[in-house]
Every structure is written in structure tokens, then in C-alpha cells.
């Protein structure tokens, strides 16, 4: 099941592991991405707080943790090829995997249809 935040992050939940990235809409707004700063594996992230930074040619943008948990893995491919976030934002361009501290936090997020409507209204 994939959920979306109003800050344009997505979170894909499989069992007790969640994968986080930014949406296609987000990468389009950012433009050409040249660097992604990922959280350290083992670090704790908190819902709504800074978890990663995306650097485009123009600006640095914060990426927030959609839920609270611990980072278990980061996408090493982004180090070599940060443009994966532009070409495959909702696939190979994922940012990090994390544990789910409180599954209840997922309930406040949007599903794909709701996010689509949200973006259409921007």
C-alpha cells in the first residue's frame, strides 16, 4: 500500500518496512537534481521532521519523514546517480527504508487517488 503526504513524499508499506521517496510532482517542481543527502542508517526520523535534503541546480529542499521510525537502509544508487530521482522518482529513485513505529500515523496520509486530487488542486 502506498501513501502520500501533502509535502509530496510517498511511503510504500510492505509488512513492517516502509520505503520513502518523493513524488513525480515533487521532482518536476525541483528540476534537475544534482545531490541527495540521505539520513544515516540507524538514525531515528520523526514524522514531519527533516529526513533528507534534495539539491537541485537552483536550490536545496528538505524532505520530511512521512512517519516516525528508524532508518534501516538508504538508496546507495542516488550517490552515483542523483538524477534517478528525476527519471524514476516513484521507483528506482527511492530515498530510504524505515521501520514503522506507529502504524496509526499512516492513517492520516493520502492514498494515491486522494494525492492525485490534491496535486490537481495546486
Amino acid at each position, binding site marked *: 500500500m502506498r501513501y502520500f503526504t501533502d*509535502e509530496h513524499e510517498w511511503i510504500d508499506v510492505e509488512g513492517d518496512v516502509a520505503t520513502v521517496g518523493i513524488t513525480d510532482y515533487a521532482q518536476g*517542481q525541483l*528540476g*534537475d537534481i544534482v*545531490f541527495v543527502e540521505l539520513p544515516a542508517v540507524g538514525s531515528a526520523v520523526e514524522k514531519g521532521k527533516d529526513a533528507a535534503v534534495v*539539491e*537541485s*541546480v537552483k*536550490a*536545496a529542499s528538505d524532505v520530511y519523514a512521512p512517519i516516525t521510525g528508524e532508518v534501516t537502509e538508504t538508496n546507495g544508487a542516488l550517490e552515483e546517480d542523483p538524477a534517478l530521482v528525476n527519471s524514476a522518482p516513484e521507483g528506482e529513485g527511492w530515498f530510504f527504508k524505515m521501520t514503522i513505529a506507529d502504524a496509526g500515523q499512516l492513517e492520516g496520509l493520502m492514498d494515491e487517488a486522494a494525492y492525485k486530487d490534491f496535486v490537481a488542486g495546486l
Partner: protein
Amino acid sequence: MTDHDTAEDQLEDLPLDALPLDAWHRARGARMVPFAGYEMPIQYAGPFGGIVAEHKWTREQAGLFDVSHMGQLHITGEGAEAALEAVLPIDLATLKHGNPRYSLLLDENGGVLDDLMVTRWNDGFYLVVNGATKWDDIAHLREHLPDEVTISHMDEHALLALQGPKAFAALDRLVIGDTPLGALTFMKGATFTFTHTGTDAWVSRSGYTGEDGFEISLPADAAAEVADLLCAEPEVKPIGLGARDSLRLEAGLPLYGHDMSPETSPIEAGLIFGINKRRRTEGGFPGAERIIREINEGTQRKWVGLRIEGRLPAREGAEVFSGSDHIGTVTSGGFSPSLGAPIAMAYVASTHAAPGTALEVEVRGKRLAAIVSPTPFVPHRYYRGS
């Protein structure tokens, strides 16, 4: 996901004005952002759109920039020449008709109020000033120029820039003038007419990308049809503000409000060429005492280029260190599409300003290795004659 604020985003919350080409930009899928009080295109949609693609297109072909937000002023009246020399450190006796020259609007302490281009016209002088500062500039000039001197704000005029190695080939097909377009070398200007539309335009061979190219001043109501004509040429695509910034950074060209301000002197900024030779000894312009002293004695800090190791860009405001000593601050920085690496400009202590000096820049608590680098980062390719 939230963009970090940048200075221009914070500039003002006033209602934004539309540029003459507003609809033209939107029809080409431009993403419009607030800049200098206007909604301006930061980048365009399509396969050649986006900052990196637009940047590279300009370096290889020709890019069309709408810079109509800039202030175009016409200064006329008896005594205009002497009056301008009293407010600018320029030597107008050596400025021939039609040639633009870089100059600086300075405050009484030699701080930079704006940078501008001054061109001698038959009936006075044509000034191009920055968009964000134009209202303050007009007020400053009105206060300091005598009543006999008239300042006309040419707000019925648009300003386009056509930049890149193919700019000449594209423009040459479209205009006719008293002399061939090819007679214009870097920093010369003349009137040309777009033959298809009959539009008269003031054209100078100048720009802000480091490439060969032209700046074209024309009536605002003809801007869209001329922009269409230019973009119908195979070499030309519209380019947004985003690439304009990355291009000028690679060219080592300063951006007012970021790389210089009332808090910086032109000598610190390496803009001594903006203080014309006669004025360096004669003075008689605002801030002359400090500026002449700095020319003779040097400055505590200097504006330098930095090449940064790795891929993480250091942006405006990042602090610069030599070991544990804080020795400077980044004023402009980003990722260079041409070099595939981060570059920046910074004020650093003059003791650490020599090319090759190893420094560090702090970004989000991390120290990045940086080397003081000669500028431009990408060589200028101005056309100075064959």
C-alpha cells in the same frame, strides 16, 4: 518537501506585476516565479526545458532570455554628461556613441547601490539597471541629478537577450541596419530593424552568460512577435531565470543583491574596471575617498571563485573556513551544469584569496573541501572581431 528560502523569494510580498511577455512565457509552459516584483519564467516545459537542458542549449546554440524586468532609463538634458559623472565613476569622454559600458551606482561610503550599463545615444544616455533596484535607482538619480536633466523610465520597452555561439547566425537573418550586424563587436551597439515586423530595436553585443550574444531593447507591444520570430530560428529556444543564474555563475559574473550590496565595495568585488582610469586619480564620485584608498592599499577581503569537491553545492550564506578560522562567506553558489561540479563565489580574507588556496565550506554542519579558483569557471567567448 519545502524549498529553503532564497533572498529573492523573500524580496517582497507585494502584488506581482506581469511582464510584457507574460502570456508568451505561459504558452511555452514556463513555470513562473516571483522575482524583482514580477512573475518571471524560471524554466520552460518540453524536451529542451529545465535548467540543465536550457543551460547547455545556451552554451551550444542560442538562448532567448526575457529580461524586461530590468530598468531601462533614458537620461537627457543639458549637462547630463557632467551630472552622470558626478554620480558614477565613469569616464564619459572615452565612451563612444553606441557602446555600452559597465558602471556602478555607489553610496557616499563607496558601497554598491547597483551595477548598470551606460550607453551614449545621440540625445543623451541609455542606462540599464537591475530590476529589483530600479525604483530606488530612479529615486537616487532624481535626487542627485540637477533639474535640467530628465530621467525617462522606458517602461514601454521590453528587453530581450539572445545569448550563445549561434546567436549571431540567428539574429543576422532577421535584422537589417546601417551597418552589418557583424560590425558589432563585444560592447558595441546600434539600431537595427527586424525586417519581418518592421520593429526598430536597439541592439548591443553584450550579455550576462559569458557567451557571444546580444541584448535587444524594443517596444513592449512588439516583444511577442519578435520573440516568436527569434524562436522560429532553429538555433533559438527560450531560456528561464534558472539557467540565467547558472550561466552567469559559471562566467564569474556578479549578481547584485547577492555578490555585492551597500555592504561591499567594488574593489573588494574585483570590479575595478567599473571605476574608469581617469576617475581613479581624479575622484569626484560618491565614495571616491574609500575606493581610491582601497585601490592603492588593497582590501581586507576579496571576492573569489571556489571549486568545491564532491557533488554537494554550497549556496549563498555558507561559511568559509581555513582550518578553524572563519575567513569568509559564500555569496553565490550552485551546481555547474557545464563542469558537472559545484562552484561558488565568496568573499574571503585577502590572505586566503590566492588561486589554489585550499579552504573548506560548511554546508549543514559538514565541511566540504574547496579550492580558490580563477574565474570565469567557463571561459568567456565574447566576439571581439575576426
